[in-house]
């Protein structure tokens, strides 16, 4: 009886393992990546790994041989030696030599990684709680990149797709074969920008600009994640990089700039409450819901509620509400969105906050009023 429950437990575990295996793989090792640096790092990793394996086999063989042969139960008599200068010297000097042999290629690779000179493309990467901003220096192009995974997948209401948690709304697009320099910094806490396929990992630190670089060999989509604990949604700020050919890159730059110009032009027309609410909800989900929650109830006391709050319902607080969204609140997680979102998005999201969840003020914030407030600042 006991045996049967035991074996059925094993079966359940195996079945559980099998069911997840269906969608996952049993990857064991580091990726070789798609850059020269990532391949050098991979080969360093394998070298040091095999050195460790060889030493481990030598040491543990002696140990297990002793355990098997020098046990009291097989009649082993203990010897009483307790030092041997020659042996001790050997096992001090040989490891030093191995380390020197290892330090040489490691130093060469490190010097290569630190050489950020002569870049073709410069991109400033700024970490925010919990998204990335990419600014193409000299191109007058800047945008934010947010997680695009459906919250229902995270909350197990629908099936997870194969890029679960590794997908964004606006990927970083870069050309292949060009030396790309990343200038990495942060707007709030420390983040770390990591794409394993490039072996680029740089901490994004407020007040500092760190440099790193890569030259990608192959066209493709490469995925990474924030690697430094940065608060609640640290696990939900992925990085997606699309490496494309030179021509595709030039095409993309033109299209991207055009779509940003269209967004700016949209601020001039008249928006109805319904239109603003629809757009506002999208903007809110992407930028605000992580802290203030989908239902506007917040998480006390770190992230205040907006639903039924004084600031989002009282008429005399209207300007204060707009000001906080535009300028942020120092010393808290509330960022200055004036520089992050377009006038239309700002108008829409503030309108949404003043009318959703029963706040029902009927207020319409126009993109024009946002523009004039931004100008007067």
């Amino acid at each position, binding site marked *: 009886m006991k045996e049967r429950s035991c074996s059925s437990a094993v079966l359940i575990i195996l079945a559980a393992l099998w069911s997840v295996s269906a969608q996952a793989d049993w*990857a064991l090792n580091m990726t070789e990546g798609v850059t020269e640096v990532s391949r050098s790092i991979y080969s360093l990793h394998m070298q040091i790994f095999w050195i460790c394996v060889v030493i*481990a086999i030598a040491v543990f063989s002696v140990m297990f041989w002793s355990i098997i042969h020098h046990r009291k139960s097989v009649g082993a008599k203990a010897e009483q*030696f307790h030092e041997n200068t020659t042996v001790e010297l050997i096992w001090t000097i040989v490891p030093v030599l191995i380390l020197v042999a*290892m*330090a040489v290629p490691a130093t060469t690779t490190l010097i290569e990684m630190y050489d950020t000179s002569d870049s073709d493309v410069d991109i400033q990467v700024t970490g925010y709680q919990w998204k990335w901003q990419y600014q193409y220096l000299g191109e007058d192009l800047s945008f934010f990149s947010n997680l695009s995974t459906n919250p229902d997948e995270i909350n197990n209401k629908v099936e997870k797709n194969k890029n679960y948690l590794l997908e964004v709304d606006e990927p970083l697009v870069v050309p292949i074969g060009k030396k790309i320099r990343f200038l990495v910094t942060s707007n709030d806490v420390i983040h770390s920008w990591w794409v394993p396929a490039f*072996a680029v990992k740089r901490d994004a630190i407020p007040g500092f600009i760190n440099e790193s670089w890569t030259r990608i060999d192959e066209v493709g989509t490469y995925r990474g994640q924030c*690697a430094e*604990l940065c608060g609640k949604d640290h696990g939900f700020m992925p990085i997606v990089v699309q490496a494309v050919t030179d021509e595709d890159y030039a095409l993309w730059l033109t299209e991207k700039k055009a779509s940003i110009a269209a967004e700016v032009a949209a601020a001039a027309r008249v928006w109805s409450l319904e239109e603003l609410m629809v757009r506002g909800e999208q903007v809110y989900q992407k930028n605000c819901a992580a802290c203030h929650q989908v239902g506007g109830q917040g998480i006390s006391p770190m992230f205040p509620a907006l639903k039924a709050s004084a600031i989002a319902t009282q008429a005399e607080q209207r300007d204060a509400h707009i000001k906080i969204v535009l300028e942020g609140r120092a010393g808290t997680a509330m960022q200055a969105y004036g520089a992050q979102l377009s006038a239309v998005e700002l108008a829409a999201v503030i309108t949404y906050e003043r009318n959703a969840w029963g706040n029902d003020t009927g207020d319409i914030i126009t993109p024009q009023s946002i523009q004039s407030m931004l100008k007067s600042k």
Partner: protein
Amino acid sequence: MTSAVDHHHGPATGMTRWLFTTNHKDIGSMYLIFSLLMFFIGGSMALIIRMELVEPGLQVVQPEFFNQMTTMHGLIMVFGAVMPAFVGLANWMVPLMIGAPDMALPRLNNFSFWLLPFAFFMLLSTLVMDGGAPDFGWTFYAPLSTTYAPPSVTFFIFAIHLAGVSSILGAINVIVTIMNMRAPSMSYMKMPLFVWTWLITAFLLVAVMPVLAGTVTMMLTDIHFGTSFFDAGGGGDPVLFQHLFWFFGHPEVYIMILPAFGIISQIVPTFSRKPLFGYASMVYATSSIALLSFTVWAHHMFTVGIPLVGELFFMYATMLISVPTGVKVFNWVATMFRGSMTFETPMLFAIAFIVLFTIGGFSGLMLAISPADFQYHDTYFVVAHFHYVLVPGAVFSIMAAAYYWMPKWTGNMYDEYLGKCHFWCSFVGLNLTFFPMHFVGLAGMPRRIPDYSIQFADFNLVSSLGGFLFGFSQLIFVLVVVKCVKGGKKAEAVVWEGAEGLEWQVPSPAPYHTFETPPEVK
């Protein structure tokens, strides 16, 4: 002569015995029991973490609580479980091993213990505060732990202060005891290695705990008094925090492993029935590790953007540490070679320590290679590495020590069958838990995330199953301890056939007062 009569009294009765005791054995026991309690509290938090990570998606807890669990698990295990356990072992064993009647500063000893329950009560109370417990990782990097921290961070700072004061006082006591109270003719180079490693550890504690205290005080003034030590917006420097933290943090790692080296160096010769190979080189290796530990802190910071020359210096210095560490492992193996071994529970834990700690050492050497660290840093590979040196390292050595000296403490033999069950379940459980973490780390899974992409699902499930096996196996240890305290086969003075040292000259259980006249040392 009332003093002569007083001198031979037994313990007081009731609660006052434990509140007011100055006896090193009572205080040692209290430290050990406290540490076991914290081990279970910190362990339960680890199981909550493993429950959430069984499969992708959020099932059990929300991200904000997950971060509180990882933070509190780390803090409690480091400051509440491992460090007090070693202090407890030092309290019990150092006087017995050097032939001293007690610790040199008995009242201070009582004070340093009783600070701990208050420190950890304060730390645990943050769990029920508005905004929750600290959620910024046990390394509490600013500005996440200052500008962006929950209000409970102030209680965390004071808890660290209290635990730090306790550690410093405990360390001073160990230093004074070892330097002044050794039996006549026990020269430094005749001291048992457990005493040696603890002496060096105590110096490390006195050197770095004040740095930690200073760091958290700077956080305190940043949060409440308008300074900007770590706030770039006010002209401060968030990286300064990391330098200060790791200047404490790296020696702290050795604080948690040097006493373990001492324990293993006591146990392996006993069960090999052969003297320790290379006693002198063990002493020198331990000292070099301690000195080097002050010169490697920035290897925790390879990706923060320190200059190339700094990066190279810290890489070379870190690689160098593997030499004295290797010497220790070679010495233990040479001690076992041509011995006459038996495999009671303490020896099983000691052998597992040597094998698994060495694996943790190898991954440490890999992490030292700075270019490769750009891929390993802040992934599960690091989590695997430090759990391999801390669980089968520090924790297994503490378990080994408990089994080794329990008959001396209680006067009864523990249940060998249950001890071996405890060992094998722990051994299988921990390898299932932590070995797959190497794989997911190399494949690219960052640490400290409550949810992960689907390619990491298989190994995380294995880790979680292993975690539960390891966690629940520790209940066997409680059973062993309770049974052993209650009764069992009477232990002799020399509990183990090959055991050498002064602690085996006193009867089992060790009387309340021992070595009132100094013993002879061969």
